[in-house]
């Protein structure tokens, strides 16, 4: 094979020039997609988890309550997700616990990085109640958060703490566990 015959189309410099011109003519609008993916994950993982019989999720008459504790990192993504998704077949209500008021009813609680220093007291307050805890901070899963998003190799990965999930009587699908990068059982 003659290597000089390869990439014959490259000889058409006008083709490449035109392509570069077309590339340069666009304004690059780089926007965050990380929390859009995490918002999609928040909706998606609920399909692979069974809430305990004691949870209000089992009550068809009340909406699914998704709470965010601390500084909301999602922008409008969670609100968009709540508006287009019926989690567990129910209307999704989004509640921001910005003042740290933990007395609201929550079925799922996202604990933001800004509440990292309060994590221990937050988890103690929940005390195995049927609230699915979710976060995206290093070591959250070791400290007892049930689902944690981490960033590895340009991708979002899942860490799951089955020990705390079982204490709160959650059943997590084996398929979700299989896809998790870390499963903490103790």
């Amino acid at each position, binding site marked *: 094979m003659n290597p000089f015959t390869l990439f014959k*189309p490259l000889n058409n410099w006008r083709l490449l020039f*035109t*392509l570069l011109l077309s590339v340069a003519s666009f304004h690059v*609008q780089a926007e965050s997609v990380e929390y*859009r993916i995490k*918002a999609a*994950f928040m909706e998606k993982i609920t399909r692979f988890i069974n809430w305990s019989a004691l949870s209000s999720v089992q009550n068809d008459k009340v909406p699914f309550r998704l709470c965010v504790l601390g500084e909301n990192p999602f922008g409008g993504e969670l609100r968009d997700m709540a508006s287009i998704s019926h989690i567990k077949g129910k209307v999704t209500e989004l509640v921001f616990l910005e003042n740290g008021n933990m007395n609201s009813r929550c079925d799922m609680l996202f604990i933001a990085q800004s509440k990292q220093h309060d994590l221990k007291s937050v988890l103690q307050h929940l005390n195995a109640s049927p609230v699915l805890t979710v976060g995206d901070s290093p070591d959250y899963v070791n400290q007892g958060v049930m689902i944690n998003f981490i960033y590895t190799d340009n991708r*979002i990965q899942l860490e799951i703490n089955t020990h705390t999930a079982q204490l709160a009587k959650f059943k997590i699908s084996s398929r979700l566990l299989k896809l998790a990068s870390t499963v903490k059982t103790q």
Partner: protein
Amino acid sequence: MNDKTKNKPRFLSFLLFGSIFFHLLSASAEEATLATMIGMSLEELLDMPVITASKTPQRLRESAGTVRVITAEQIRHRGYLTLEDLFSDLPGFQFRNIQGFNSYIFLRGAPNQNNLILLMVDGVEINELNSGGFYGGGQFNLENIKRVEVVYGPSSTLYGTNAMSGVINIITRDVDDEDAQQTRVSIASGNFDTLLTDFRSAHYDNERQFGYSLSGRYFSSEKADLAGAEGDNNWTGQIENFEDDISLDGKIRYGDFDFGLVFQNKEASRTTNFKTIGDNSLDHDTLWHIRFLNLWGKHDYRLSKQLSLKSKIYFQDATVDNDTVAFIQTVNDTSNCTTGAEGCQLGFYRPNTSWGIEEQLNYQPNTDLQLVFGLVYERDDLSSSFSRTYSSSITEPPPEPAEPERLDNRLAGAYMQAEYRLNEAFIMTLGFRRDDSDIYGEADTPRFVLLYNQKTLTWKLVYSEAFRAPRRWDLTFGTGNPDLKPEEMKSLETSIGYQFNQHFNSELTLYDNQISNNLIIDDIANRWINQGELNTQGAEIVFNYVADQLSAYLNYTYTDSEDENGTPTTEIAQSTFNTGATLAVNQHTRINLRANYLGSKQNPDVITTTGNDRIDSAFVFHTTLDYDNYYGWDFQLIVRNLLDEEYYHSSNRPPDRYRQPQRNWLIKAAYAF
């Protein structure tokens, strides 16, 4: 002015037009594609790239090669009905649709009998066993497809034989997909006696970790008016062009085990394989009856965080059934008929089975290195040739052919692939496979990929080799040739992709493919022989725009394909392009308009009605209108060849060229409960 020089200004104008078009689109870009992400599977979400440090978007193709995906949404909104429809809007594809019993799909400038592409359903090969060629047509249940992945270029390093021009993997809905947890039925009717009905249903019990899915399809159509002048005077007014397909797909999941079934029964007229005006064939009452049964089981076992084992066992039955009537002659020809005064009919029967097992070990010792090791063992039980019977009448079908002689073939293969992240931006992939067959001996296929991925820019360099082993049909066709060697391909490819924003991306791909030991038919000896080369250089440029309310695409393909003497390859157009857009008018209504430009190409033989060997260029438009979610009902109107363009595909058979369907429409209603 030759064709090449004529094409250049057109191409540059096209690029500039594309730039302006998409610049305007991006200026009015809608926010967010969250709905699309929610529609993705967990695996797809886990595979979505992001860069946390800069919080900038990345939707870059990190796969080790050019991969293009067709989604369930696109299948539905573009009104695709058949296998060949799926690829009609992608760059690099060209077609020889002979109507009747088959449609041939060419990728990157290599005409063939559908045996240079490996077609899989859920990762299990569905190419016909004896010839290695898959069947186009309506037997694939498109309603149950989650997505279709098209890997361009040679992939024998992972997939073995047939993966020369590309690999197509049709991925069907999983038992636990949220949007599959319903029963959906649809019925459609249109001109050319087209009737389509399908259903799908799935259920997954999370607690018991058990689920199932079942889907089916019935498709029946005459497809086009080919009578007399409408069919370019190849056939009389009595021509039959029917296709009747029944298919069934099923899956069961229990814990970590998955089991699947794909059944397809295709019955179609074989009349279009021959001429009947000015020839001695009858253009009705022929039948090509082929059925496929694929059964598979898969198991994924994670031994540790770094180590996992994927197991797959599969069985395939691909049989040309014993009621097949391959052709009917209206004169007594002793070369084909044993006896008979008025003519004769030829019956075919060709049963084939195969089973195989594959073990794939995935090992990731650290975050920078990923290793894949695989072992494959296959055993084929193939007919040595068609078993034939004849009747001495044009009205009496031939008797059932006897069981043909069966031959046992074995194949063992081993492959490995290493993906190593050199630094933040560069990933290098090295792969190698060795196949050892008792038909064609050993075949080695290496692969090398260098990938640069930085924020919004991706660049790839791919060198790969592939082969297509002669199958039983190649070895025995006509007078037979037991000495055939595998066709071999060497390919060098580079591509550059750019993500302009969250909605808009573009990609340019350049490649050089060289096929040696080319398999061609020796007309004098009437058998396949290895002869010469097929060299193809090409460029594909793609623009994609996706937002919530509007999605659009535009792609152009330049193909320069010739033999070792520089003679252009027949049946391949130098220029093709496709464009289309889907607009969500409101929450119920969507409209899709798409167009295919098929460039002029050379026909293998002179066409009687035109006196030359050119297949003219054509611009074909299609439209689909959806009205969804009306009390559980979805309605659809599909109009193909909207402007009733008269256009043709090339022919490598007795008909001079193949008229493609006139304007045809279909009305579809679906209900989900």
